[in-house]
């Protein structure tokens, strides 16, 4: 028997549980999925370089989804911006280190030119996606005062 079948937990009617927010996390997860697919596309045919059009399209799609997510997020009022920024800031530091490590490996392995630019672009989007998801997920459950 699941919780849903047994009745709501205490606090289920709290404003943070009832509030409807735009699909920021879903769009950002979609953006992250696109850059991961792009990375697999680039890595699968090594040492050959794959057709770069699909990789470019995946990166553009990821940037577009991220931009839409940010646009929707910026329209949310009121919102726990302090919490979002706190988590996203430290998350960005952590994932910048992770993306930097992966970028270092690509450069060390001799990747150059357009393929390297595409991979670094994907890593940059990845380094923004994850902190945004973390920050949004934390902030959406914070109680906030009136706008």
């Amino acid at each position: 028997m699941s919780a849903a079948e047994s009745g709501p937990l205490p606090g289920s009617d709290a404003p943070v549980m009832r509030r409807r927010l735009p699909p920021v996390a879903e769009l950002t997860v979609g953006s992250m999925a696109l850059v991961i697919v792009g990375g697999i596309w680039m890595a699968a045919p090594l040492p050959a370089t794959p057709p770069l059009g699909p990789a470019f399209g995946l990166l553009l799609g990821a940037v577009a989804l991220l931009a839409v997510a940010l646009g929707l997020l910026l329209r949310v009022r009121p919102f726990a911006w302090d919490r979002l920024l706190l988590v996203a800031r430290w998350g960005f530091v952590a994932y910048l280190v992770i993306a930097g490590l992966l970028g270092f490996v690509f450069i060390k392995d001799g990747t150059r030119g357009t393929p390297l630019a595409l991979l670094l672009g994907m890593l940059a989007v990845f380094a923004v996606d994850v902190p945004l998801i973390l920050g949004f997920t934390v902030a959406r459950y914070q109680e906030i005062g009136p706008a």
Partner: protein
Amino acid sequence: MADIALEPGAIGTEPLAPDRAPVGAQGPPGAHAGGPAVPAFDIVPLRGLPIVVAVLVGLVVAVASNTLWSLDFFHVVAGGLWTGIDLFLGFVIGPILGRLSIPARIEFTTRFMPKMVLIMPTLVISTLTAGWQLARHDGTLLASYGHHDWIVASFIVVGVMAVVALGLLEPANIAVLFELKKPQPNPAVIGRLMRRFIFTAGITGAMQVATLVIMTRVATT
């Protein structure tokens, strides 16, 4: 996997009887009256950061030196721990947690999850970075490699795990810790996030089994 994910009483998912009301469900704001106390904890245990930095420096040295042993060491050790922790969490710890009392769950969660915030990303980046470089080193990354299909399959498995872990599991983990930091944590918020945590831990557990199949296949054929 679904049995684990939806198991009654999995941490945070169990409807609570009034006499087992969770922390903050009763009592005045700012107090824990009527519920078990939440131990003081840091969401990110700063004492562990030097260890993380040391591991990452070692990883950079391994990649820069490109020596077989150091790459193999990082890939096997970190990968083994990553897989083992995921499976142990999904199949052993999760069901046990579901049967603990609410205070025990809270105490375990506040002591366990902050450590996971540091441990898992460090293991994941070590496994993937060293694994990539190792595959470059021994040629298994090349399309000409006899089992290249298996390697590409491993990319896909890791990709699915990354989306699930970074997009769903880790945010739920962090959000639960922030909720438990509040003077009056909301049981419904914790319940919703923990359902997500347990469910996604089950998915990553299944992906880890796939990883074991692929890696043992690649290593022995």
